[in-house]
């Protein structure tokens, strides 16, 4: 028993302490978080934009009106959703790296764009369902005051929609964080790459891989708690 424990301790030291590996782990953590947060930002902006275009088109279609520009935009949005949700994010990352941004050496940009565009497609459908869940009277009240469509969306519909979809957005955020673990295929040194490197150097697999699994797990738990907290705070403001 004590022998087992001693070997575990040796493994731990070799994995995390030797050659200051904990420092590169923290650097890797920085990479993971950087990609996740920037991609989330792009994803949310893109998602809201696509959701607003899609819902305004739906609303116009319901009123049997037509607008050429909006129809084209709506078509583009649908194409975007189909392509992005119909292909693996790993493949999207490879295409972005080797084809679209083949001339760029900025892997952060490549990763952030890929994951941002990918997340945007999922956020768009979540936000759209949130917009549809808001009573039509809210839009009518905003418009009857003289606010235009975008102003009403922005100040009245979207804040309420976001409140309703916060749990779904939180899940999307968590999925994004975990999905960034594939960025090592384009040579980025995130925490997953760190574990692969340590395993290659030390021939220890248990410590580095279980170690980063725990790091991901802790981040996800913290995120879930934050989302819950935010949700409760938003709800309490209303009631």
């Amino acid at each position, binding site marked *: 028993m004590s022998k087992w424990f001693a070997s575990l301790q040796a493994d731990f030291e070799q994995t995390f302490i030797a050659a200051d590996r904990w420092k590169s782990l923290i650097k890797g953590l920085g990479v993971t978080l950087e990609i996740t947060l920037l991609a989330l930002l792009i994803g949310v902006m893109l998602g809201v934009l696509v959701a607003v275009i899609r819902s305004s088109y739906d609303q116009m279609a319901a009123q049997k009106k037509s607008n050429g520009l909006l129809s084209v935009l709506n078509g583009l949005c649908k194409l975007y959703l189909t392509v992005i949700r119909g292909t693996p994010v790993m493949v999207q990352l490879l295409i972005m790296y080797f084809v679209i941004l083949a001339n760029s050496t900025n892997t952060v940009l490549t990763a952030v764009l890929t994951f941002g565009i990918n997340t945007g497609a999922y956020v768009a459908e979540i936000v759209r369902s949130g917009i549809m869940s808001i009573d039509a*009277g809210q839009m009518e009240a905003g*418009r009857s*005051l003289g606010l235009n469509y975008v102003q009403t969306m922005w100040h009245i519909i979207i804040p309420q929609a976001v409140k309703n979809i916060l749990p779904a957005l939180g899940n999307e955020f968590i999925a994004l964080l975990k999905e960034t673990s594939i960025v090592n295929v384009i040579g980025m040194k995130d925490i997953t790459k760190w574990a692969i490197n340590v395993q290659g150097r030390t021939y220890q697999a248990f410590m580095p891989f279980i170690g980063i699994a725990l790091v991901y797990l802790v981040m996800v738990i913290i995120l879930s708690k934050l989302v819950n907290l935010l949700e409760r705070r938003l709800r309490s403001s209303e009631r």
Partner: protein
Amino acid sequence: MSADILIKVENLEKVFTGKTTVRALDGVSAEICRGEVVVVIGPSGSGKSTFLRCLNLLEMPTAGSVVFEGTDITDPAVDINLHRQKMGMVFQHFNLFPHMTILENMTLAPMKLLKKSKADAEAQAKALLERVGLADRANAYPSQLSGGQKQRVAIVRSLCMDPEVMLFDEPTSALDPEMVGEVLDVMKELAREGMTMVVVTHEMGFAREVGDRVLFMADGKLLEEGTPEEIFGHPQNARLQDFLAKVL
């Protein structure tokens, strides 16, 4: 009654096409004069709400024109948002913004559209809340108010834009009976101050007491119009006589 026409509606027609085709408005022409209180009555499904909602183009008429302050607002080239600023609307279900306080509900549009400063907008909102006896609820959220309070807020929210006309669609129909009075009182006071009002309602007492003119609609048509005395005292149209026999 002044002859200063604020809204002139001509041959208004609204056809809803869906699974079934509904001719909700079938050639309605009417005039609303400045300072006048016009009450619209009629059986359910007769097109009263559709008529009202066509006045500020929440519903786009399929034919006919709505001339507001001399401009045909059904013209696609017209910026309807500018005209809607001057046409307040009060809904049956209040439609307050639940994520904003009462004060925020009232100051959003004046700040965004009339470019009022926050201080100005809030001062105006508080003065209006004071008038409807809700000054102490300025920082409450809509869900913390009773139905009657919500509707009074909805009315003053529209008033914050200094509208030329107020449109009411059954403002008391969703209220518990004991709260109807407080909302009608606010509306009566507005009328006394000379606000132009178009009111769709089932409150015949209000129509009689406050209305300058009553429009009776059935099957998407304006079948009779006149002063409350004429409409309630000497109804001509058989449908109107029938309707009044049922509701009075």
